[in-house]
């Protein structure tokens, strides 16, 4: 269970990226985090991976306050999280295969297990023939899919994906989303930051909207815009809205 309790986060530059944000995500949920550019979505994710610490409030994972975690334990926290970073963060000097295998080596999997699992995961994201390529020899979308493969290879408890389809065409995006939904169905909590209106509207999942650091909406089943837009083919029922309107701001 992930719990944000009145979390505020101010960068050393003085930018306050999150302001008094509170919400709870149960184990096994599938959540979209949306919001305009610079709203604070990536910051929220960084708090979950201990990349940044909240300046106020608490971030709890299974009732454990990760802001007060010992530094030497951070790696073990991260091993339980599959991360897809907005800027991919692939190791430039390792091949696609090695990048994915590396995530398994870290948690101490045997070579046999790695040799069996990595090709499967690469096939799933459609990169089996690119296994030997270096990240620099891949297209943007291909790199993104490597990052996705790496995030899911260890069957983590939690997948955090920051803009996982920003460089993918609609077909690939839908495939990736279907994949994440599949993983979610087996019990993994999935949290996705995205700007992809179509996908959010199609998936009919919980939507948390951040605007200028405030949590402005938390719909149990939501669309990209607060009131499901008329242009979407499938009309959604007006969802359980707990927040305020998309333009609204808390004081």
């Amino acid at each position: 269970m992930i719990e944000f309790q009145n979390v505020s986060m101010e960068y050393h530059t003085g930018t306050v990226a999150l302001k008094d944000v509170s919400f709870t995500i149960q184990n096994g949920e599938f959540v979209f985090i949306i919001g305009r550019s610079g709203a604070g979505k990536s910051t929220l994710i960084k708090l979950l991976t201990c990349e940044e610490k909240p300046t106020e409030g608490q971030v709890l994972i299974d009732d454990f306050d990760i802001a007060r975690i010992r530094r030497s334990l951070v790696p073990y926290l991260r091993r339980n999280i599959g991360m897809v970073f907005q800027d991919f963060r692939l190791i430039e000097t390792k091949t696609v295969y090695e990048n994915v295998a590396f995530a398994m080596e870290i948690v101490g999997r045997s070579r046999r297990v790695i040799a069996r699992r990595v090709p499967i995961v690469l096939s799933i994201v459609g990169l089996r023939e690119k296994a030997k390529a270096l990240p620099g020899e891949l297209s943007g979308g291909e790199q993104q899919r490597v990052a996705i493969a790496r995030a899911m290879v260890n069957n983590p408890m939690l997948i955090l994906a920051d803009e996982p389809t920003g460089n993918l065409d609609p077909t690939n995006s839908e495939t990736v989303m279907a994949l994440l939904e599949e993983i979610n169905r087996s019990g993994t909590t999935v949290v996705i930051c995205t700007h992809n209106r179509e996908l959010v509207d199609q998936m009919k999942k919980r939507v948390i909207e951040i605007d200028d650091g405030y949590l402005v909406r938390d719909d149990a089943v939501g669309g990209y815009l607060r009131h499901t837009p008329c242009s979407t083919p499938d009309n959604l029922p007006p969802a359980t809205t707990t927040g305020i309107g998309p333009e609204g701001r808390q004081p």
Partner: protein
Amino acid sequence: MKLTSVFLSLREGFRNLVRHPLVMLASISTIALMLILLGFFTVFSLNARHIMTVAGQQPPIEITMRNGVGDKELADLDRYLANDDDVLEFQRYSPQENFNQFVDNMENSELFADFPIDNIPYTYTVQLVDPSLAESFQTRVAGLAGVRKVSLELAVMSFLSDAIVWVNYATLAAFVVLGLISFFIISNMVRISVFARGEEISIMKYIGATNWYIRVPYIIEGALVGLIGAAVAWGVTMFGYDRLYSTLMAGAKPSDVLTMLPTEQLTIIILMINLVIGVGVGSLGSAASVRRHIQV
């Protein structure tokens, strides 16, 4: 650390080395350079000590006979010295020889044109198998017929032992200084190369690699750099020394005091020194800078 991890770290260490040929070459050649400097210094100091030890093992003991000593006493002493097990070699000098040698050493030799040769005694120079036997030899021989004095030339011996102490100090100082410089330069290099890989390292951390998991391959890499640098330096030093040896020692006899140590005798010493310093500096330099810079 599990066996798999050890294996993986080794593999990573090797790979890092090959993946950044630029960094690798720079580091290896720098460490090799410092070790070559150190090597030539070591070779010099070992040879200096060798020559001094050889000279010290052969203290020129001089026996001065009484003036007007008879042929019998001389023959007896000849026999005595020839049969003494402590004596390695001896040489008798007649008064005329002594005078000639003495005059040769003078600037104004004509001053001594009419010097009365009778005033000059017979002398012997004696070399012992071991300098520690000198004092008992002195006591024994001083009592023999015709012998006026046995001088041990302690000045030379104490000069030599002083000189050995000084060479030892200088060697130590050079080791410390050059060692520190090598360490410093290597750890600077490693720091820069760690800096160059900062992104890679931070990515590993984001994925959940522990500090040791990240650090160990760098330390192995540093050790490898040191190892290769040591080997290169060793090759260069030994090759250079061998050329020098064959040039300088071409016409030397084994009995000469001023002999260089043969190349074979230095091979192992230099290799050991290089390996210990190279690998030590390489791995410790890596460890230090990875630790400090990564802030793991």
